């Protein structure tokens, strides 16, 4: 038995220690917002937070996250929408939407570390693949979140 702390709740799972976190989330816990895209920690569709850091859950064994705080798209904003999610709506980012959970998780982590990211910061942090080409709107939305609220 492995105990995982997911979105603030403890889950006891009877799974192999080497099972990737992604498949524990999706097929054991039914948290379907985190997506499979490549399985080799490249595309970012499976991005979640582990102790606040963005992590590719497809390549992270559950044994490595035991005792750590895992946050998925379902838990990124316990009450209402996260400012990043609101900016995503405001700037009409998603097209097919498949990669967007991972994009949002990566953006939330970036903004937590760098509340005013430069374009270069965004290029380095946001390595998630989007085949629909929502990149320009992702950049705009991240900058919009970073803007100070008007007085």
């Amino acid at each position, binding site marked *: 038995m492995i105990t995982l702390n997911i979105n603030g709740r403890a889950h006891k799972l009877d799974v192999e220690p080497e099972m*990737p976190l992604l498949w524990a989330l999706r097929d054991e816990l039914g948290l379907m917002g985190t997506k499979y895209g490549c399985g080799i920690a490249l595309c970012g569709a499976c991005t979640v937070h582990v102790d606040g850091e963005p992590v590719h859950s497809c390549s992270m064994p559950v044994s490595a996250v035991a005792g750590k705080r895992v946050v998925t798209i379902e838990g990124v904003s316990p009450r209402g929408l996260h400012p990043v999610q609101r900016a995503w709506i405001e700037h*009409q980012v998603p097209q097919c*939407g498949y990669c967007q959970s991972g994009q949002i998780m990566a953006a939330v982590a970036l903004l937590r570390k760098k509340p005013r990211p430069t374009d270069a910061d965004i290029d380095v942090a946001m390595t998630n693949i989007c085949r629909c080409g929502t990149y320009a709107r992702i950049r705009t939305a991240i900058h919009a979140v970073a803007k100070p609220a008007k007085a």
Partner: protein
Amino acid sequence: MRASANASRRDFLKVSAAVGGGFALELAVPGLARAQGGSGGAEVNAWVVIRPNDTVVIRVARSEMGQGNFTGLPMLVAEELECEWNRVRAEYAPPHEHLRRNRVWGSMATGGSRSTRDSHEYLRKAGATAREMLIAAAAQQWRVPASECRAASSVITHQRSGRRLRFGQVAEAASKLPPPKDVKLKDPSEWKLIGKSQRRLDTPEKVTGKPVFGVDVRFPGLLHASIAQSPVFKGKVKAVDGAAARGMRGVVDVVQLDGAVAVVADNWWRANQALKALKIEWDEGPNGNVTSASIKAFVRTGLTDPDARVGRRQGDVEQGLAAAAKTVEAEYYAPFLNHATMEPMNCTAWVRGDRVEIWVPTQNGEAALATAASAAGVSERSVEVHKTHLGGGFGRRGFQDYVRQAVHISKAVGKPVKLMWSREEDMQHGFYRPVTATRMKAGLDAQGRLVALHMRVASQSILANVRPQDIKDGLDRHALGGLIDSPYAVPNELLEFAMRNTHVPVGFWRTVFHTQNPFFRESFIDEVAHAAGRDPYEFRRELLASSPRNLGVLDAVAKAAGWGSPLPAGVHRGIAVQDSHGSWAATVIELAVSAKGEVTVRRVVSAINPGHVVNPDGCVAQVQSCVVYGLTAAFYGECTVKNGRVEQSNFHDYRMMLIGDMPKVEAVFVPTGDFWGGMGEPPQASIAPALANAIFAATGKRIRELPLKNHGFSIA
């Protein structure tokens, strides 16, 4: 089984009413929505259901794969319905109901940028018809002539008395009235929704991780499958040793299919781990030695084949070339490409006796239904198809190979099974953009005018597999798109075609042949302009004098990009024009190239005439999307073949553009309002040639074979 068409319609209404925010609930818990019964929505017609609280549910027959159908198509209905837009919800029209109701929703096929251009009229009529029925129901209640009543913002008003009824109050009565035979559609000048940017209806849920894509279908008892298909296309399974796999945790079964083996388990990762433990011996068939080089050599034999078919002939090209003051000749080549949708191919199937249910992200619900029926060996009336959101489509999901597999697997294990391909399977078992070789020869007269053009295309045919009846006497006109209808006025012209089909399956890859062929045509026209010592924009202008739509977008893009205006040192422009999928588009790309071949794309300006721009912001998104799709392919896209199989396996060797590679994109819409064109594909057609022409302008290097990475270029 359902007793009658009416009963079926009633059941469907209950489902529609119960599912609330769309199809998600029904999908997450199949059967539940059906059992819950209705909360009272009234189906005014097949497209429009109105609830007592005035919520309008608009059915969508085509698939939502990112291109915005779940918003743009309902806009067309709502425009005429006169309902408040913020009360509109979209839901899929189920393919099985479609079959039972005599295909009431028209075509469900989603491809060729056809959704809007093929259905705009019947969708607007559906809205207008429903509106007239709502007005008639209110007029009946008031005992006044319908002509004295008007509908606006989900309210019907009797103008003389000022009495008002909300849509939700009369929808039930309206649904029982006969539909009017003729309804007049608004003049475009009266449109309130069409032509004004509306927020996508599917955005709020898409930022929460809640939408149900095919891979997200989930219900108790559902098993998971991972599949290994013959690495060499068209190969067979010779033998499988599944002993080790069967002993692994969670594994339920090993299922052998035609040319594939699947492992079924209680978790996809376990299924995939066990799949890796299988010992499969493949019968590779005759193609185990095929390579990219052998394919290219074979395709190129079509360039000199004396038995080529004539696609287009005008004047006398031989004489024209012989008399020319100067000739230009070049050969071009384009590789296989994978669609690489972010969501890999998948389908959930549940075969119970002669009943089959599938949940699938497909671009063609009717084809998915027919495939499921044939795979299970049941009648089409025994199949239910639940469409999910699509994590990208780009043409790949017009094929239903994964549906057939999922049905076979479920039937074999007697349980519901969700089959998902690994990325590696997805990369190596696509329906690739066809390889194409082209040889072109142009003749210029002493004044530098194009007087003769000979084009020879050797290509794999998509239609040869999917619609062989459309190939007449060896001529695949579809494979000549962009050439057979080239708008350039050339007095002596010959276009020939030689089909060269390889063992690699090919299919409709976004913008289809209007990606390779425009790269050939528009690059070559650039070469010819250069040889004539002419400006490539002015050279095209003259040749397009009698093609106002091409000329229109060409002029628009030149103006918006400032063609001819001075640029900073080291910055250069390329231009290209290409109509496709019912719309006209042209692109100017501005870039700089470093000594190491790193290309900084500073600006992509795209001018489009799609006739009508239904949802402007959604159309901007499609231009951005086409730029990324087109640039990714032009720089990096190539599926190579070795030992009969595709060599690329994942995103590490099939590279994608990332956010840092995204150039500034400017979309310029110049709709002329006299036709309805496509939007999801046309903006891509002129991307690759505009890029290659700009690189030529910057470096003097003419790119005649894609991708650019093979010539030492990369995105800076």
